[in-house]
């Protein structure tokens, strides 16, 4: 019962926080602390839930998700939509990821000078939206949470961002809206075909093959928009470069995962026939992400652009895992979702810290920062190492799993792309090292006085992420087996 309440509170608490923060004095330290405390409570509860789910999950061989702590009641009777939330292995992992990113996002905005109420308020709504996405198992509820972020994304980026912020914010919001429109259309189709929005009930119903044929690519690509699959990736560089640090962390760390999560949880799960027909062709799109992405990153000078393209290529690996349609590859994709969340969170957080000190994101204008701000520099380098797949950090585990898994798919195209993807890890190394070397190493070119040492909260963020990266990188086995309980139903549905 306690867990049930906790699970519901996950998304209600952020809203309540916004509500109760209205009377607090604008820009006062209390406001920040209040929001931080709320995010901290959510983080602790999500970790607690993870532990509880971990304890209660047994190995799963059915094609049904093993849902725990369900809450279910009628919601919109006219369309028989239910309020139906629950948690299983994959969602509990994603919840923790989201909670960590939200928590650190608030920390990263600690020194925001004005309009804190608006910023934190919208940020909490974003938080509520992702928590909701990961725990809802009713398509309407899922979509409500999924699309909610459009409400705040534009204002957060355009109001608090930097550079070409209005353009970037619009590009991001609208492109994401295209994706969610496609999702909504297919959800409506699913409802019209089956008469239910309940994900668990739907898994027992086989959708007509003709419907799957048309609906699957729309749904998959709709989800893939937010995970910036080619050719819908263009929002990502513009959006990330414009967004404020916390929003970049959020967008790359959690929001982009929501798409992949949806692809796995909903698109592939509900339409296995469509998946079998289409995914082999979608590999061609993935090839762009995985292979061309790093090369584009090499030619950019703006840190956020580089990181955005790095995210694009890493997200491509998630899709490679999905498209390979083997259990190991699925697991790799799930691991990569979590792992990339951490590493990109760390990336954007450190970039934000550097930007707040140097007021530039052009790597050619910076040099030798390691000397002045070693803590942040080390954080950046570790994020980079995680990004290029260094063993011991989580990126390697996820990538290796994806590669091993996708190589098991015997289709020629999948083989070719897997091989190219493996070979492209060099390219990743090139841009990450280029970035680190230009910016952190060499003689210091900025007066040291303008570069204060990392503040306490910044150190906290960095340490937090590094710990996460290490835990997942050094002890992946329990997490991997834990995730398998969510992966297996999807795979067995696929093989049915």
């Amino acid at each position, binding site marked *: 019962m306690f867990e049930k309440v906790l699970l519901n509170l996950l998304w209600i608490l952020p809203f309540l926080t916004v509500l109760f923060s209205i009377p607090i004095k604008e820009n006062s330290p209390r406001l920040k602390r209040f929001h931080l405390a709320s995010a901290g409570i959510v983080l602790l509860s999500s970790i607690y839930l993870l532990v509880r789910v971990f304890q209660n999950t047994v190995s799963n061989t059915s094609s049904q998700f093993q849902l725990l702590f369900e809450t279910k009641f009628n919601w919109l009777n006219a*369309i028989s939509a239910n309020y139906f939330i629950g948690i299983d292995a994959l969602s509990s992992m994603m919840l923790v990821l989201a909670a960590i990113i939200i928590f650190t996002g608030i920390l990263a905005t600690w020194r925001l000078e004005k309009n804190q109420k608006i910023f934190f308020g919208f940020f909490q709504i974003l938080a509520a939206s992702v928590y909701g996405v990961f725990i809802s198992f009713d398509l309407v509820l899922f979509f409500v949470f999924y699309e909610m972020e459009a409400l705040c994304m534009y*204002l957060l980026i355009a109001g608090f961002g930097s550079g070409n912020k209005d353009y970037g914010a619009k590009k991001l919001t609208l492109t994401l809206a295209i994706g969610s*429109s496609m999702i909504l259309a297919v959800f409506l189709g699913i409802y019209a075909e089956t008469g239910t929005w309940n994900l668990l009930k739907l898994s027992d119903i086989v959708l007509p093959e003709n419907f799957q044929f048309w609906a699957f690519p729309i749904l998959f690509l709709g989800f893939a928009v937010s995970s910036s699959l080619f050719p819908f990736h263009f929002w990502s560089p513009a959006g990330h470069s414009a967004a404020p640090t916390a929003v970049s962390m959020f967008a790359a760390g959690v929001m982009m995962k929501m798409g992949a999560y949806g692809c796995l949880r909903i698109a592939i799960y509900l339409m296995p026939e469509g998946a079998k027909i289409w995914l082999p062709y979608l590999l061609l799109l993935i090839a762009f992400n995985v292979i061309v992405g790093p090369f584009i990153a090499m030619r950019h000078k703006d840190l956020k652009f580089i990181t955005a393209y790095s995210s694009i290529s890493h997200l491509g690996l998630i899709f490679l895992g999905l498209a390979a349609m083997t259990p190991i590859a699925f697991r790799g994709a799930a691991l990569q979702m979590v792992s990339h969340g951490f590493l990109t969170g760390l990336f954007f957080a450190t970039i934000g810290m550097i930007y707040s000190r140097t007021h530039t994101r052009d790597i050619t204008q910076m040099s030798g920062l390691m000397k002045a701000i070693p803590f942040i520099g080390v954080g950046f380098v570790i994020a980079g190492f995680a990004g290029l797949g260094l063993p011991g950090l989580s990126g390697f585990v996820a990538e290796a799993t994806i590669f091993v898994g996708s190589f098991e798919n015997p289709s020629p195209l999948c083989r070719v792309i897997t091989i190219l993807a493996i070979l492209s890890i060099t390219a990743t190394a090139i841009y990450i090292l280029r970035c680190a070397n230009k910016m952190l190493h060499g003689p210091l070119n900025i007066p040291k006085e303008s570069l204060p040492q990392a503040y306490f909260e910044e150190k906290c963020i960095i340490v937090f992420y590094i710990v996460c990266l290490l835990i997942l990188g050094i002890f992946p086995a329990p997490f991997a087996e834990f995730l398998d309980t969510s992966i297996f139903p999807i795979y067995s549905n696929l093989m049915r």
Partner: protein
Amino acid sequence: MIAIIPDILLLLFPFLMLAFKLFLTQAQTAHKNFAFAYLFILLICQNFVLIGDTQVYFSNWQIDTFGIFMREIFTLSALLALLLSENYFKHSMSEKPKLFHFSEFAASIGFATFGGVVVVSANDLLTLFLGLELATIPMYALVAWNKRDSEGTEAAIKYILMGSVATAFELFGFSYLYGFAGHLTFPEIAQALQTNQASPLIWISVLFIISGIGFKMTLFPFHLWAPDVYEGAPTPVTAILSVTSKSIAIAFLTVLVFGPLNAIHQEIVPFLALLAGITLLAGNLGALSQSKLRRFMAFSSISQAGYILIALLGNSPEGKYAIIYYLFLYTFSNYLAFFIFSTISKDQSETFISLNGLSEKSKFLAIALLIALMSLAGIPPLAGFFGKLQIFTAAAENKHYFLILFAVLNNVLALYYYIQVLKSAWIDKPAKEIALSVSTKQKTIILILTLSVLLLGFLPFLSNNLSIALL
């Protein structure tokens, strides 16, 4: 007999207002407060009307569940329009001179509202036609209310000329329908359609009727008048045009399509689908780069009309339910937007630029604007999204997947231009500081509307109550 009492009360309203004007010339404020209170009480009365089987009075005055809810929407819209107009009678706005003759204004709105009631109560073509005309003619006058504002007069000229042409089309269509069925009452027309082979006569009549009502509902390509008239008319009239007038038009279509024409529903549906698709595209494209708020709202309401039309593709109870639900939420969102626009228009023109710096001046208004516009754009968890969801679900039942995909993709365009407004209010910095003065009353209304928009969709009460009644 109880169900008809609110209708009689509504009919009395304009006469009472005129009587007040005649006998109590001095008490200006009392007029207003009386009007608000009267409509408010009326709204509550309507709420108490029992929902159940269709009741028929005077052989052709038919009160069904759909009608009862539509009455509430019309009354609500009238009440909100009067509240909105209050300030326009107090002082002149930057663009428009002050309005006069509140009582007559309220009476006209009362008549138009009653026209809507007639439309949803009609059981034969004649009553339907009378109701529509009763709803339309006061609108012509309302648009031209401000004699000193030449823009308003010109808008009224456009409106009335094109409106009359549309009426002619409609009448022509009615005549063919009568010619085909030989009767004017709905059950007999329905029966004639069921028994007889559908002849070309009927299709021409359908084409003419839909074209005629398409004008009122601003369907493509009969929507051309809307931006000019919305812009020229006083703001409260614009609001009422975009809500009441549109609701009446869609009620008219619903009564026809799900009533006498239900037998040929399947044949009309492709036409309606095309109309809906093109209309919402046209509305969305037109709104893309506007700079004047009312003109912008005109295009936005054109595309909303397209969305509502989609509900007609569904089957009868779901379609009707979706329409009512959507109209409720649309009324709240739309009036919320207009209320906010009215707060800025005292010293500034109603343009995007005047919104600049709103978030600095008043966070409350800026957030209310955000909520109103995002609701119109259909972003969850705001009301507009749930309205659209119901509409799409209704259409999806009949497998109009392609249209739904087209419509939801159009939402992206809509989101773009609503964001443009938000950008003016939140991001752009004002050229010069002009203080905002918002009265407590306005603030209260805006707060209530904001909360309605915020919660009515997500919380299931409205939806579930409607669905119990209608489905």
